């Protein structure tokens, strides 16, 4: 005897969080049943496999019907079709838009296009995340991107308003949108040690300081695109390395104040010019899109790796960067103080976040 039809509909839509997670993770019904079996649920409840199967199917059907609404969370809140308590609605949305660390690291900074979507198979194999789940996550990124891409106002707030996400998740999405828009390279082998959280932090710093929104809060794309004018101005910083005198003065100022405080004084002194050149060069090259994309690689290759090889501690880096930044103010011939701060504050925060002990 087979059940052709087997459904359960509650006046309040019944949602099982565990099954929801399995569904989000892209497991088929039979896989989900196997996993649930393994969790020992039958022993706890005395149910049979048939019951579990039917229950899982039922939840999957519900989620499938809810998925359409989850694409526009505001619809989920206002629809009449499913009666779901607000706290549950929030849970459904939050989890639907949650993503896997390993997945996001694969697509972060990539163009959210059909091309990337085709690569999802490979990502799925690589990350051991089901293709279905990869697709959902990718589509979420893309959907959020499309909606907020050309919107005025704060990126995080826009995301929060349209997708009703928690503050934290909205910030993450802001980072994803920001990275996708500028297409920062994050996938190179050298960058593998960085977590999504590191990048998200950097994105937040950059959005806060380097975008149009940082100076004018009423422009289109204000948080998404970098401030072109600012990038252009960064070329002015070249004077710090191009002018031999300036470079020497800057070096001596930093060395004086760090003597005895930094554990890698000698290495620092020896490397000062290289490091300074690296940081200023990165700034001056940001007018080219390609160099923007390589921003993180440059930071790692030109700054983090040399320091690492000289065994700088995080504290050393912090001391150095702080001193490096403030000393420039006391270099008389250097006149781009505001520009320098706008650049260096972000660079410093990013580097400190990216520098893992």
């Amino acid at each position, binding site marked *: 005897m087979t059940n052709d039809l087997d459904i359960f509909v509650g006046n309040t839509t019944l949602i099982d969080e565990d099954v929801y997670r399995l569904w989000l993770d892209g497991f088929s019904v039979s896989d989900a049943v196997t*996993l649930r079996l393994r969790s020992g649920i039958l022993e706890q409840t005395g149910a049979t496999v048939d019951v579990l199967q039917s229950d899982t199917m039922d939840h999957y059907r519900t989620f499938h019907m809810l998925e359409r609404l989850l694409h526009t969370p505001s619809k989920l809140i206002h629809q009449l079709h499913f*009666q779901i308590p607000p706290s549950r609605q929030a849970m459904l949305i939050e989890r639907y838009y949650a993503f896997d660390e390993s997945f996001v690291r694969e697509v972060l900074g990539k163009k959210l296009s059909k091309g990337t979507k085709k690569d999802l198979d490979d990502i799925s194999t690589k990350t051991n995340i089901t293709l279905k789940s990869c697709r959902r996550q990718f589509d979420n990124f893309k959907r959020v991107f499309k909606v907020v891409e050309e919107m005025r106002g704060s990126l995080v707030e826009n995301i929060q308003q349209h997708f009703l996400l928690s503050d934290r998740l909205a910030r993450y999405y802001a980072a994803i949108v920001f990275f996708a828009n500028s297409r920062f390279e994050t996938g190179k082998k050298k960058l593998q040690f960085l977590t999504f959280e590191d990048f998200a932090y950097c994105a937040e710093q950059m959005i806060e300081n380097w975008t149009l929104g940082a100076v004018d809060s009423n422009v289109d794309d204000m948080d998404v695109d970098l401030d072109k004018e600012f990038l252009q101005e960064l070329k002015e910083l070249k004077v710090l390395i191009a002018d031999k005198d300036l470079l020497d003065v800057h070096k001596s100022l930093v060395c004086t104040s760090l003597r005895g405080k930094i554990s890698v004084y000698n290495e620092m002194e020896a490397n000062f010019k290289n490091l300074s050149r690296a940081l200023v060069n990165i700034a001056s090259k940001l007018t080219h899109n390609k160099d923007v994309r390589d921003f993180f690689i440059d930071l790692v290759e030109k700054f983090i790796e040399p320091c690492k090889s000289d065994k700088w501690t995080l504290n050393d880096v912090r001391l150095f960067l702080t001193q490096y930044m403030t000393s420039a103010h006391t270099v008389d011939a250097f006149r781009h103080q505001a520009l320098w701060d706008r650049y260096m504050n972000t660079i410093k925060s990013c580097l400190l976040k990216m520098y893992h002990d």
Partner: protein
Amino acid sequence: MPGKLKVKIVAGRHLPVMDRASDLTDAFVEVKFGNTTFKTDVYPKSLNPQWNSEWFKFEVDDEDLQDEPLQITVLDHDTYSANDAIGKVYIDIDPLLYSEAATVISGWFPIYDTIHGIRGEINVVVKVDLFNDLNRFRQSSCGVKFFCTTSIPKCYRAVVIHGFVEELVVNEDPEYQWIDRIRTPRASNEARQRLISLMSGELQRKIGLKVLEMRGNAVVGYLQCFDLEGESGLVVRAIGTACTLDKISNTAFLPACNSPSKEMKEIPFNEDPNPNTHSSGPSTPLKNQTYSFSPSKSYSRQSSSSDTDLSLTPKTASSPQGPRIFLFPSSPTLSCGSPHLNKSCLLFPGPSLNPLHSSHVSPVVLRKSVSFTEELLLAASGMGSGSAGKEGGPFKALLRQQTQTALEQREFPFFTLTAFPPGFLVHVGGVVSARSVKLLDRIHNPDEPETRDAWWAEIRQEIKSHAKALGCHAVVGYSESTSICEEVCILSASGTAAVLNPRFLQDGTMEGCLEQRTEETSPLGCGFCHIPYDELNMPFPAHLTYCYNCRKQKVPDVLFTTIDLPTEAMVIGKGCLIQARLCRLKKKAQAEANATSISNLLPFMEYEVHTQLMNKLKLKGMNALFGLRIQITVGENMLMGLASATGVYLTALPTPGGIQIAGKTPNDGTYEQHISHMQKKINDTIAKNKELYDINPPEIPEEIIGSPFPEPRQRSRLLRSQSESSDEVMELDLSHGKKDAFVLEIDDTDAMEDVHSLLTDVPPPPGFYSCNTEIMPGINNWTSDIQMFTSVRVSRLSNINLTNQTLNKNFNDLCENLLKSLYFKLRSMIPCCLCHVNFTVALPEDEVIQVTVTAVAITFDKNQALQTSKVPAAEKTLQRASTDNEEQLQFPLELCSDPLVSQPFSPAKAASLDKASPLAEGHLRHRSIPSCTNSSVSVVKMTPLSFIPRAKITKYLGIINMFFIRETTSLREEGGVSGFLHAFIAEVFAMVRAHVAALGGNAVVSYIMKQCVFMENPNKNQAQCLINVSGDAVIVVRESELEMVPVQPSAPVSQPTSAGGDVTT
């Protein structure tokens, strides 16, 4: 006389994209009532149009107001081609027609299309200005209130309960008209929906007229059903109980709604002088009149009129089958198996279970003898009825006489109520039911549905005479149903024969009566158990004992009823859902041959269902069934029987004996061993069940049990004018004192199967209880956490060797698995009780069984339950079933401060799974999710019960009666049959909720899904489903809120628990 209907179309939202090119829609709305149509402007290029229309005004007769639904159609404007319909909303404006219900309908309604389902929402405001009309010849019945609730609604008081009202209207089914061949499925579905809406409006109006004629102002227990007779037409029929209700003012503060309040406000509806003048004088005829009773003529032997053709073929060919009647005695037909009790054997030959008899008959003979028994039984019932009035002494006779006069005027003294005001129900005789097999023929003249009327009249007559046979003058808990397969139709009616207190039945007499408690409603709460029939001429075999509570009157050993547990009943332990399930194969046949074979099968099915119920009841250690509902479903090649009831242990009835197994070949050693093994298993099960349901009746010494208290015994002998000698009485009682066990014969494999199936019924997992009644005895501390649900299963019996056994097993498994599934799904609600569990079975095609269940799961507070059960004294374990008897139904106030309020979902207890996305984990564990409290959708609770736990109904807004059709031609794309039906049922819920919210309500009580007809054609990728639901829209206020805000909450359209918001923009 006219009324003015005003409609305003405010806005739409979430509309579907109708223009692929622009991804937008140019929507406008047509508003139609009767033959008048208005249109809004086109709101171009938007999925969220803001029409903000003027008020569209319709000036119409109130007759039309009652019959016609308001029809709102949303369309997409197309310059070049015909406008495309997006969907429709039908609004029943009936609730606006009585002054106490809703005043305005305003809110978001789902836009529904029969092919696409819900497509966006529309905000509508509807008002009615009704001009008072005193025209005597009016055809409308505006102002008569309708309630689905089968008890006196919570904020009303019954002044008079007038009695039975019924009506039916017929029409051609649009689906079968010639035009259907050329119109689209959508047009056909909409024609059907509209027709049924019209017909139910008309039906309601006609019933209302009857109520006005009876001088009532309301219909309670209103049950409306559709019979889709296919080619031969469409029947909409309804039954209900006409009442004069009186609104209790100040509902918030009166503890009991049913209890009479001395300061009634004047009833606006009641045309009679208000009877509440509270004459404390002896207005009661009970005391004044001395009476000598002479058997009334109404107790003539009508019952045997149609009995004779039970096992005969029909005499006339043209009208296929006479009514198949059946009598369900309150006591089993087969309970007297003890060989030594010659008397009972003589009087009530129960051959099937009499060891002497059946030990040497083959099953075939056994079957025959069963039908023989039926005849005898019915003959006996005739006898019983003839002398029913002789017993009981002057008092009973007086009562009888009086009630009789009240009831005599009525053609059918039936009541669709299942719960009654205290004191209304005097005695309960037992279940009476009647069935009749009919051949459908085309209804030639829709205006004169005489055949259908005659059919039902016939059945009702049967029921009436059965009730008389049981010494009862009324039938309560009455209901009617049909099962149709091709051109064969089984009409069924059932109810509980009862003796009622006349005071509610007549105008103007009740107030005086209320004060004085009649002896009949004894304070011990056992009165209703006492037999209403004559002990010496019992209509059926039964063991009688003196009541275990009062020891004055006789009670049967088992009681079956279709009503709810009376509030005054004393119960030990908890109740439980008991089901009997049965399949019978039937040869495929045409027309009359088919009808004949069905009617030949029916008695056997009834008999077996009854036996199963009895066995299961004994196995649970209980002695009474409430809410019994037996459904017989007819299919092409089989008949299905499903009986559901709630078993309880009534303290007034004797402790049930066990079940004993007797083998047929006592000499065989291994067989003997097997038997004893089985016996042990059964005994263990009984013991286990007693523990499970807390059935631990106080031990009463043997001597006391059988005999009455000395003094009352004297009296009873005095009263019993006809009884011969007290010795005989003693003998009968003593025999019972030995607790004769129920004997199960194992004489063939069939019987073996039966015993096995008895034992395979798995008890619900710990923390779960279930019942199909309103009240669950033993549980009273409900929380406000409720979940109403519908579950549907369709099972195909393919690749199965179809025999009665395999069928039975499959059906049994289907039901058991369904229950198991429910327990699993609702595990987060533990401790929890499934209340009002309602199973329906359909046989949509060959070898396909469809089972639909609707119920409500309610979480209760375990801690408090434990406290009560810890109380050691045996006295205290006797809980009054009336845990919800007003005071307690409304729940003690101290519970209100309980912090455990309304957490709709308690966290699932299931272990979280090992595989989980780390980020998701991180997010959720440590982050507060933004609260989406700006939700504009108000919560609407739904329940099949007549109340919402821990909340108080402050206002009834009107009846909800909706009929939907959904069809698809892309079944696979919609997720197959399951996906299709799942979505549809969810849509139906959504539409019910939206209508209730628009009326200003926040809950539906007495919700019922009356029909769910599902048809599929997988080859064509098509499916169609029809659903009919009804219920009462109400405003409820949580008790905690009541306590906090002692302001009068009966103010119009206060919406206390809803989230408010833009529902009424």
